[in-house]
């Protein structure tokens, strides 16, 4: 029984590791966005409301409501968990200095919105289809 339990835990651990190793996030933008790449600092500034432009052009950040890609994006580029991240945006909203970015349910909705809205920039899972948008390299 103990061996069975150990084996189960081992398989579960490996599965988690495998899922995490494969889950990655890419940054996408509307084709009107001139930049083809963005620095980590600039990306963080846009997605925390500190900046509204990339490469001299206005951009509008779009968020995922939740999910693996959302959590990975926050961890990789913002350095906050979801609660702290949204609290930061609400501070701007409640002091009259910003509008909460639109949050969408799922990668397909983000791709659809970014493709059809000038200046939109978002993030999705690497494996998700993303026709009609450009991928920004993060340097």
């Amino acid at each position: 029984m103990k061996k069975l339990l150990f084996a189960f835990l081992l398989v579960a651990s490996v599965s988690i590791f495998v899922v995490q190793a494969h889950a990655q996030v890419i940054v996408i933008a509307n084709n009107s966005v001139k930049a083809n790449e963005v620095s980590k600092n600039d990306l963080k500034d846009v997605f925390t409301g500190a900046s509204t432009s990339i490469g001299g052009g206005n951009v509008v950040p779009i968020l995922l409501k939740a999910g693996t890609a959302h959590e990975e994006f926050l961890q990789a580029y913002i350095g906050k968990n979801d609660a702290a991240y949204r609290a930061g945006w609400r501070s701007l909203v409640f002091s009259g200095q910003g509008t909460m970015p639109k949050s969408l349910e799922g990668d397909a909705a983000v791709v659809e919105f970014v493709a059809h809205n000038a200046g939109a920039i978002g993030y999705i899972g690497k494996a998700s289809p993303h026709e009609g948008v450009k991928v920004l390299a993060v340097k």
Partner: protein
Amino acid sequence: MRPASSKLLTAGIFAVLSASIGLRAQDFKIAKYDVQVHGFGTQGYVKTNDNNWLTMNTSGDGSGAFTDAGLNLGSQITSNFRVGGQVYDRKLGKLGDWHPLLDWATGDYHPKPWLGFRAGKVKTVLGLYTDSQDMDFANTFALLPQSVYPIDLRDASIAHLGGDIYGKAKLGNNLGSVAYTAYGGRRSDNMHSGYPYLLSGIAGITLNSYGGPVFGGDFRWNTPVRGLTVGISRLNEMITGKGSYNGFLGIPAQPNYWEKSKHDWTNQYYGRLVKQKFHAESEYRRYLRYQTIFSGLSWVETDVRGWYVGGGYTVNKWLELGSYYSHYRIFPTGGAGVAASYPDAQTHDFDKAVTAKFIVNKYIYFKAEGHFMDGNGTALYPAGFYANVNPNGFANNTNAVVLRSGFSF
């Protein structure tokens, strides 16, 4: 006036209803424009071992007369133009008293990163937290350092009716970026705030208006050290208060009382470092006010100097710990009707605070905080301790427990 218990019940019902709605920001459309609805609310409890604090009856069983809430509507009309407004209400002991206010209402046009314009009733940028001091959900502490952000004097600097010019710009040579704000307008205090309440208790003065022109600015540098921001703010104002005086201090009564500031300014210097799970900040504020009082018969000067050093650490996604040391000193002088000197305990308040913040989820949290205060700062200007609710005088030192829960969406 409704009994205190029913107001507490109202606040509790508001909190429960908001939680049951799902605590999600609501969106709807007006014509083709998306309108967002956001809100926040807090409920607190304060218990002191001595002295009643912040106009609450805290020294007995403690007080739950510590509630606030805000409701916000906003719309991004175009990529460069945004409109919005917010209503705010609070009960802090005898202050606020459930008189809702228009907290802010602005049109904001931002054509370039380095140039934007806001007009309407605008939150004032002064130091790190003046414009966001109500955002309890975003702060580590249940009470911001009172030497710089006195919660009883929120109205003194929270907003102005006028306009701002603002912007940000990146500096070359990897020198970081700078942000500026310049503003002008009028200040108009809520009569349910600390200063009018103080005057009613110690001087027999009932104010019915307090405000005047204000102008100032803020400049901050996001330095090349990632996460380090330093800055400076300046506020100038010319404030007039009007009301009546009942002769309490021996000067003949004045049915058309007025007071007017001749020099009235604030300098504030600040720095903040945010590194992953850790943040530290420090600010120094000097508020100098020289004013003519008793309709020109006397004068008073209050030189208020406050500073703090504090910080916090995010242990995990449910727990944040923090602490600060807050140092408040007042140097009061004045003419007829004003005491020539004050005991040392009345001219300072040194406060050591420790906090634990528990984050339930992205909407709800609660905080537990201890305060250990040396001094009561009661000389001539509000500093949290009011004679109105301490009729037997003041103890020199006060310890306090502050519990505060809240939500935002």
